[in-house]
């Protein structure tokens, strides 16, 4: 009897077993998802009081943290003014103001600069920032074995002398009206001499913030430097988060995880984000002249009329609207519109496809087939598509050639193996590149070179202004390239976060003046 009982029991249990296990396993999943997501919910920050920190979104992560040995703008974005400082610095509007240097005297017809530094300045490691450190930094940047990406900036220096701990003399080979501007660059910051070996991973600067941690691939944390020599900053902590995916950037703004994304990767989303009352738009200007560069050495582009025809076939506003969703200012020469010496030359090659077609015919060009090389940024990729459509209106057949940056630098920039390319020149005040005959547009023009040579040694503001106007007109008339638009500094920030730069005179996220409004 017992045997039968157990037999029946074991069978009933067995029969139910499988259904039970199935239900159990299925039931396990939902709670697990719920539990984990709930846990995640707990970590979403809730703030009631005025915040002392800010989370800033950036598109690109710096490869390392040494601004003196790479061209990566991301390094300057994180460190400029926040961690590292120079003798002078840029303001939001592009003006040059004293920084580490309290004052200076210029003598010897602009060949000698005598700087007086602030007192009691210290690096984050406690060492003193004095004239010796300045001399060390600048000598390092201009040496023969320097790997400074902007090494050319310092080639005008002939000698640096330390006179006193706070006194420094810099002698130039020839007068340079732009010298103080050059010292404001991120590549000219002053570093702690003891720290050279550690520069790339643990930057020791003199700024109001110091680096606390770097979670590679995700974020960099800066903390307030309590011993800062200058005006203390409002924020205790700044987090830079690196988000290159436009949709991820948008999501991060929408969830409020990020307080500001000053250079937003997808301009098309800005208007929509700005409809949120907690957010407001940043719409300023950058130093990026976006141009359709032309290989001036390659026929038929060596003919001015062909370049002119191309320029006149292009509707710049359509490109700004289509590629940048309206963010950007049309330009007519290689010069930033916010610069005080800017002149409007957008009418040098007005949009007129009919005339353009005629000019091409007059030049005897039929059946023109050209290639546009496109680096990765969205202005180039989308702009290229639009330009392709526009050029086809005047009978030019276009092939688009998308390139990675490394390929672009190798093929277009170094080997000059291209017809046309779209690129934004983000260095401030870089009209002088047209004076380099071997630069990648292959524009070798003696009159322009002499204008620039004269500008280099001119310090008188009115004369400089005049020369700059000449220079702008010259390259506009010559139609060296098609000058498309000034890249906008288009981003988004929380309404309560005050002090984010509207313009970007250099690639910097200056957090020193940023604070929360209640």
């Amino acid at each position, binding site marked *: 009897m017992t045997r039968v009982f157990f*037999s029946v*029991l*074991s*069978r009933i249990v067995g029969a139910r077993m499988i259904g039970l296990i199935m239900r159990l396993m299925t039931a396990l999943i939902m709670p697990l998802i719920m539990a984990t997501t709930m846990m995640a919910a707990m970590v979403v920050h809730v703030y009631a009081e005025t915040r002392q920190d800010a989370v800033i979104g950036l598109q690109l992560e710096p490869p390392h943290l040494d601004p003196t040995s790479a061209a990566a703008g991301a390094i300057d974005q994180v460190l400029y003014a926040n961690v590292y400082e120079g003798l002078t610095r840029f303001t939001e509007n592009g003006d040059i103001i004293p920084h580490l240097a309290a004052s200076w005297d210029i003598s010897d017809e602009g060949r000698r600069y005598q700087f007086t530094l602030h007192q009691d300045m210290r690096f984050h490691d406690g060492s003193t920032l004095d004239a010796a450190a300045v001399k060390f930094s600048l000598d390092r940047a201009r040496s023969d074995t320097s790997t400074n990406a902007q090494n050319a900036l310092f080639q005008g220096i002939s000698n640096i002398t330390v006179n006193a701990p706070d006194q420094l003399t810099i002698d130039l080979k020839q007068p340079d009206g732009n010298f103080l501007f050059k010292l404001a660059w991120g590549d000219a910051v002053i570093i702690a001499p003891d720290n050279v070996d550690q520069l790339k991973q643990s930057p020791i600067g003199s700024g109001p913030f110091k680096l606390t941690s770097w979670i590679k691939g995700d974020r960099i944390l800066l903390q307030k430097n309590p011993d800062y020599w200058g005006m203390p900053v409002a924020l205790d902590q700044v987090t830079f988060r690196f988000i290159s995916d436009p949709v991820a950037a948008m999501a991060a703004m929408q969830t409020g995880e990020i307080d500001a994304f000053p250079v937003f990767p997808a301009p098309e989303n800005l208007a929509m984000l700005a409809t949120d009352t907690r957010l407001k738009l940043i719409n300023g200007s950058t130093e990026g002249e976006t141009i359709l560069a032309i290989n001036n050495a390659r026929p038929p582009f060596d003919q001015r009329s062909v370049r002119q025809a191309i320029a006149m076939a292009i509707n710049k506003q359509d490109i700004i609207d289509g590629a940048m969703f309206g963010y950007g200012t049309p330009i007519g020469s290689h010069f930033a519109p916010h610069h005080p010496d800017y002149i409007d030359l957008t009418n040098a090659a007005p949009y007129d496809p009919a005339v353009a077609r005629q000019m091409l015919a007059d030049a005897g060009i039929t059946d023109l087939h050209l290639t546009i090389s496109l680096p990765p940024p969205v202005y180039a990729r989308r702009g290229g598509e639009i330009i392709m459509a526009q050029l086809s209106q005047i009978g030019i057949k276009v092939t688009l050639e998308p390139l990675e940056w490394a390929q672009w630098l190798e093929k277009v920039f170094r080997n000059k193996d291209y017809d046309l390319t779209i690129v934004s020149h983000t260095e401030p005040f870089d009209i002088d590149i047209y004076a380099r005959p071997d630069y990648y547009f292959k524009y070798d023009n003696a009159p322009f070179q002499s204008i620039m040579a004269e500008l280099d040694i001119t310090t008188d503001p009115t004369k400089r202004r005049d020369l700059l106007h000449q220079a702008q007109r010259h390259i506009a008339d010559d139609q060296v390239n098609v000058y498309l638009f000034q890249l906008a500094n288009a981003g988004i920030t929380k309404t309560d976060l005050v002090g984010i730069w509207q313009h970007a005179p250099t690639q910097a996220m200056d957090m020193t003046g940023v604070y929360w409004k209640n």
Partner: protein
Amino acid sequence: MTLLTLKNLSISHHNTPLLASVSLAIEHGDKIGLIGASGAGKSVLSLAMMGLLPPNFQISGTMQINGEAVDLTDDAIMRYRRGTDLAIIFQDPRLALNPIKPVAAQIAEAAELALGVSRVVANDMALDSLARVGLDHGIIAPDSLPDMLSGGQCQRVMIAMAIIGKPKLLIADEPTTSLDTVTQAEILALLKQLADEDHMALLMISHDLAILAQTVDQMHVLDQGKLVDHAASPPFAKTLTHRQSQQLIEASRLDIAPPPVASDPNHRADQDIILAADHISVTYASGFNVFGIADSNKPILRDISLTLRRGECLGLVGTSGAGKSTLMRVLLGLERPQQGKVRLAGDVVDPKRMTSAMQRRISAVFQDPNSAFNPRHSVRRIIAEPLGLLNNNMPQNMTDQAITEKVAQALESVGLTADMMHRYIHAFSGGQRQRIAIARALITNPEVILFDEATASLDTLIRKQILALISDLVAANNLSAVFISHDLAVIRAICHRVMVLEDGQCVESGETEHIFHNPQHAATRRLLHAIPTSMT
């Protein structure tokens, strides 16, 4: 009380009737045989009695166990009957065991289910049960996996599993079909012994009357889903009178004589030797080193020599694993022996250097009619395939017409019709397939044919037909043949001479009749003993 009664059991599947009105009564301790040709509905009946048919079979009729009606379609009810009242063993014991579970555990599971005992008790019972079926601890380890066991051992495991719940009725569905004769005899004896010991009823299902005759006390004959004949006690040959029964009885008598040998056996000269194997040894690699090169070897054939004279039929006999198939591949030039040479009419047979002239002289018929043909080729293409060997010797390629004629001829010579050549192989029965295989082997007019278990997978009716056909063809075409089988009865029906293989070695050879009457080696005696005794 009657153990089990079937009343008017009818089963159909998608309106195809499979069983029609089968009624059967089984008493406790009965040993009942159920015989039928393939397709008669034997397996459907056994599965239906166990309640194991899928739901999409329509079942009508009733079954009673100890007078209690059970619903064959209700799995929940049938489940409690399986293992305790009814147990079953199947045809293919290797596939019927879970490949990744130790055999003792599989048996113990049955004990747990049938008797409701604890795991520990079940394990002990499993060991006892294994011992009962002759698999003592010394023979196999209880935690062996099925793939380490021979087919016979697997079937013993199945039996141990079936009897552990002390079932009232054990259904054995073709339990020995895939086993060699020696193992078959052992399994049959075991089943009989266990049935007697446990007073367990036994329902043996087979196509072979000879097998049933020595095991059971009663016999039912199933033909096309109907029980057509019944014999309540032996000798069955007299009681079973139905036409189908008579055919089955007739088929179990392998009274075919080997084809007459053309030349006088007393004056065989050496030049008459068509195929000779000289001290053949084959080893298989069983382990590989870093570079994938074999570093340990397992001997398969050891120093085998044989000769085949023109017009002679040589039988190679041995249990499974004796090395018969390997020897066949070596003889055919499909595999190169590590030592020794095979000569075909004086030329050395080497897999790498087989000329078409040599290849033409030798052909083969293989065992498994399911994998012997490319299912995507028509019969014409299958049979014509070796004709390529002739092409090389001809000035022009054979025309389509010529091929068709040759194929038609070949088909007719094996008792099929020429119009079958455009069909595909799945349209043919097992016996027909074997005929096609023979037609293919004959198309190049070879001098030697090798038959590898050519009748092993056929039921008795067909087997006899095919053996007769082979015998006729060998005589008619003056062929020499090597016939490989595990069944000495089959060998006796067709071979002049026989060679007994065991563990890759030749243990005995000689004239067939001589060996039959005067076996020397123990292996030979075992094979002889395994031949089912006549039922008369």
